[in-house]
């Protein structure tokens, strides 16, 4: 792992991509895409996050165990959000009392 000999050039490229992503997400936010605005914003944010994690945080060159831990973090977060919204978003479906 410690042999991450990424050239500084790739750091600058990732930096430019992150800046471009910030400009893009700000620009897109002012367009009316209806319900599509949120998925677009989150996709751009996710892409930027992956660039930071893989290149700036060197996960690309990390051990498999470190990769697993990082992925587990995302997994548990999705579990938290998914199960919570599975409850909140579906409460009205059956029209049950005490909604």
């Amino acid at each position, binding site marked *: *792992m*410690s042999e*991450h000999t*990424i050239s*500084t050039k790739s*750091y*600058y490229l990732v*930096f430019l991509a*992150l*800046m471009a992503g*910030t400009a893009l*997400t*700000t620009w897109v*936010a*002012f*367009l*009316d*895409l209806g319900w599509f*605005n*949120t998925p677009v*914003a*989150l996709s*751009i*944010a996710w892409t*930027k*996050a992956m660039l*930071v*994690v893989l*290149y*700036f*945080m060197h996960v690309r060159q*990390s*051990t498999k*165990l*470190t990769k697993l*831990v*990082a992925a*587990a*973090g*995302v997994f*548990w*977060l999705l579990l*938290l*959000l998914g199960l*919570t*919204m599975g409850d*909140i*978003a579906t409460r009205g479906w059956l029209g049950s009392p005490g909604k």
Partner: protein
Amino acid sequence: MSAEAHGAVFHAPRGHQFDTAEQQKDASTLGMWIFLVTEIMFFGGLFCCYLVYRWLYPAAFAAASHHLDVALGGFNTAALICSSLTMVLAVNASQHGKRGALIAFLILTILLGGVFLGVKAVEWHHKFVDHHVPGPSFLFEGPDARQAQLFFSLYFVMTGLHALHMVIGIGLLTVLTVQAKRGKFTPEYNTPVDMCGLYWHFVDLIWIFLFPLLYLIDRHAK
């Protein structure tokens, strides 16, 4: 990561439980990542809270979100991304034993972090002036004042917790700068720089999600 500074030359101090310096570094990286996962869950609870209330009160959240300053938020996003670049260049400099560059990039990172916090302070000040701080003096035009207060509560807690992480990060980087000046880091031993780098990038990562969620996603609908 402190305690061992005695001005001596540091030759990759290695714990006796490790076979190689590389194994020791992998263990540090793994430990740091496990800490960062707990941080993901820490912020994740707040993101979850935000998601629930945004789902329940979309109109109020959209109206409240319009009171945030996209220009300042965007500027701060750029400042943080620049600081992530200088941080990764600092890590790179320490791996190549370039002490001068390491110190310069650490100081640049600290300065950019300071710029972020300064702009954040200006934004918070605007919120106080506009009575958008949750509490007895909260004022909000429109029918959704109570729900808008929820948005601003989440805004302050999430950006506040993020800013607290920035302050801690700046503290860590200041310690690193002093240690780097004393010649603590070599191409063989630079784990503290690397670990603080992970922490700093993580803080950037949180902001990458906070910026669109708080400032942007309701902009299109007025």
